[in-house]
């Protein structure tokens, strides 16, 4: 074990480019043992790339890396293991059909002995306070269990320096707290911990120092104790940013959607939603909170007509003209024509709604292809729409014809959300609209949603960040395991309460037994 608070890794003038894009430019910084370092920066600021250089995924174009004072060349993940560097990626590197033990020993050169490995894993878990079920398959584990497994895997390989890429993105507040507890145990044990994040409150609560990157440049490292949210944001964005999300007072208008006893099954035949009932009104933003995969997607898709529902479900829609109709049994196209629009941003951003190989114009056209009678397409309205979205939302693209796949993630999302808003819906459903966006763009999206709200649109907002949900939404519906565990008034609740509701199912089940 190394001395506490001595430098274990030093990056000296490190530069990494991908083609014309400079991901990291001339970065010099250090990582110390016995401390938790936050690496803070907006999306695309090069945090992950920089850490991938340490993990052996990428190799720097120039500059030196020193580990414990020695100049090293990290050419592969194995080199990183040998140097005691372990990285937990955002997308877990686990084989789903294997057991946890098989995953942990994967690729090691030691003799294959699951029983001995299990014993060693048990010791690691006791030392740092992990709870890990070794008997199941990884595919049956929850996201937080998978993350635990990844950390144990790194420690099993003797990691002294642990890098976590956005570890809390998929966790509930309670799970995050548990993770931070484990990280503090590691710090006490003299390990160096780096967490990549853009959540300021986490930075402030868990880390000792904060290193800030902006657009691939290293800005500074500051002591967390001397930093505030405002000062960190300014360093991260480079200018003063208003951090308050506006919540215009509700002018609750007529009821737009009434969902009652909605149940459905997911793709694998397992119940995804059971007995969900709620109402959505024009002129308000209804937030939907929950751990990912708790039925959010199925809920929105049921309303949009993309998901088969179970008998007994009821979805009533009241249009601006006051006519009430059931949406069940209508096709997705008919529902869209009524003014119910859905923009879903999946993890890979392009999975739903946009065609990666097409340009902006053609993607706009996807919404109108069925209009008109001529066999030829009329591209002019779509081109105008694309032009409008591009200027309104400041989409950075070389041309409207550039395949959207080549745009950066934030710009892809602007195209998607912009198109849905442009269709002037009466009900606007968005899921993960700001997933992975930087602060500036996120605020643009919040502003757009608020604009829709003022216009009297009923907005359904599925989000991941509880702070944002609390600040933006009027009411929050909490889903847990496909059930509604509560509908709360956003102004009068706390993060802890929502976090509790997000995991309530286990509690009630335990009570029932």
């Amino acid at each position, binding site marked *: 074990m190394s001395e506490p608070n001595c430098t274990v890794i030093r990056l000296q003038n490190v530069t990494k480019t991908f083609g014309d894009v400079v991901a990291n430019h001339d970065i010099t910084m250090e990582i110390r043992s016995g401390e938790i370092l936050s690496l803070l920066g907006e999306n695309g600021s090069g945090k992950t790339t920089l850490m991938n250089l340490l993990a052996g995924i990428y190799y720097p174009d120039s500059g030196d890396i020193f580990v414990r004072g020695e100049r090293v060349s990290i050419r592969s993940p194995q080199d990183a293991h040998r140097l005691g560097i372990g990285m937990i990626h955002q997308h877990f590197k686990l*084989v789903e059909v294997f057991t946890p033990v098989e995953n942990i020993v994967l690729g090691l050169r030691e003799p294959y002995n699951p029983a001995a490995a299990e014993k060693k894993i048990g010791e690691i878990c006791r030392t740092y306070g992990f709870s890990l079920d070794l008997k199941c398959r990884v595919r049956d584990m929850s996201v937080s269990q998978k993350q635990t497994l990844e950390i144990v895997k790194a420690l099993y390989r003797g990691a002294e320096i642990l890098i976590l890429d956005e570890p809390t993105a998929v966790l509930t507040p309670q799970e995050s707290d548990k993770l931070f507890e484990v990280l503090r145990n590691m710090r006490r044990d003299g390990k160096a911990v780096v967490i990549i994040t853009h959540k300021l409150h986490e930075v402030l609560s868990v880390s000792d120092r904060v290193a800030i990157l902006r657009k691939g440049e290293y800005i500074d490292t500051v002591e967390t104790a001397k930093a505030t949210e405002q000062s960190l944001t300014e360093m991260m964005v480079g200018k003063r940013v208003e951090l308050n999300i506006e919540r215009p007072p509700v002018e609750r208008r007529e009821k737009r959607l009434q969902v009652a006893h909605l149940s459905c099954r997911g793709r694998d035949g397992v119940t995804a939603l059971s007995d969900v009932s709620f109402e959505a009104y024009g002129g308000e933003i209804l937030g939907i909170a929950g751990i990912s995969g708790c039925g959010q997607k199925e809920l929105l898709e049921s309303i949009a007509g993309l998901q088969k529902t179970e008998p007994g479900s009821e979805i009533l829609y009241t249009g601006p003209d006051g006519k009430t109709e059931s949406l069940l049994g209508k096709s997705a196209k008919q529902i869209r024509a009524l003014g119910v629009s859905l923009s879903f941003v999946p993890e890979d951003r392009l999975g739903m709604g946009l065609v990666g190989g097409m340009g902006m114009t053609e993607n706009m056209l996807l919404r109108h292809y069925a209009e008109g009678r001529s066999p030829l397409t009329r591209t002019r309205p779509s081109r105008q729409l694309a032009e409008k979205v591009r200027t309104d939302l400041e989409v950075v693209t070389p041309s409207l014809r550039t395949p959207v796949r080549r745009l950066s993630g934030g710009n892809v999302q602007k195209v998607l959300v912009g198109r849905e808003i442009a269709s002037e819906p009466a009900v606007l459903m968005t899921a993960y609209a700001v997933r992975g966006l930087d602060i500036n763009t996120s605020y643009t999206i919040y502003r757009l949603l608020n604009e829709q709200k003022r216009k009297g649109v009923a907005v359904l907002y599925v989000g991941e960040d509880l702070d944002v949900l609390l600040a933006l939404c009027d009411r929050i519906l909490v889903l847990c395991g496909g059930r509604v565990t509560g509908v709360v008034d956003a102004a009068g609740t706390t993060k802890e309460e929502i976090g509790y509701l997000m995991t309530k199912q286990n509690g009630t089940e335990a009570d029932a037994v």
Partner: protein
Amino acid sequence: MIWTNILGWVQQAVPFAAFLALAALGELLTEKAGSLNLGTPGTMCVGASAGFITVYSYCNAVEEPSVVLILLISLGSSFLAATLLGLLYSFFTVSLRINQNVVGLVLTIFGCGLAEFLSYYFVKSESGNVRCEAAFRVFTAKIPFLSEKLGWFSELFFRYGFMLYVTIAAVILLSLFFYHTRAGLHLRAVGENPGTADAAGISVTKYRYLASSLGAGLVGMAGLFCVMEFKSGAWSTADVYTLEAFGWLAVALVIFALWKPLNLLWGSLIFGFCYWAYVYLPQLLGVTVSTDLMRMLPYVITILVLILVNLRRHKGDQGPAALGLSYFREER
């Protein structure tokens, strides 16, 4: 009468099952590493023709062919020729990252054509059908004591050539390899999630090359096995099409076995019984059915199994998750 019928059925079905299982085992090894080699029919043809041509030439060249050399030459050359084809497949799909389905289909067309060409060119005969008696005798030699002295037990279990027992051993060994060795774990990881395997320090390239090449080698040997058993050591250019059909059957058998090696044993037996049902089943039942209709049975059964497996939606029944996908490290 019934007993003779059943016995005949078993004695035909078992050798048929054996070479099918061997071919499927080769394809299974390939698929476990994430490569879907649709070149299996072509590989089988190339293995069969290479093995037969070399051993035929050898037996014609010497007066007293030695048993050891017959085995070495025939199995060795079919294995080698097929392995080369597997290497070619790996080069195209792993190094050049060409779509696996395209490469596989191309190799099937290429392999069948090559086998036809080779046999036409090297094995000239008036009737178009030549026989290698010496090799046939070696491949169908029975185990001395066990095959005669145990009555019906011998009739059922020991009336076959040695390749059957080799195949059973190979299936069991490969199953042990997959599930009880570190290299097997690595191989499965490559087929399930190459990105993870790569990050864990496993060479995806190495495992895919090895699995595809050795798998193809097994498929090639199965081709020769088929010529010796099913065709009784005779070969003609037209046999290429019979072998091609069996190659597709082997690909289907891998799916039928749900990618588990031990399932190949009974799965291939079912295929064997189904295949030979056109001779024995109508007799047993005392009815007349169209032969062509009956010969569809193995394929119909495969389709039924696929439907059943999908209805059950059991997660463990799926093939390797990365099956059919090329792996790029730099892709984000």
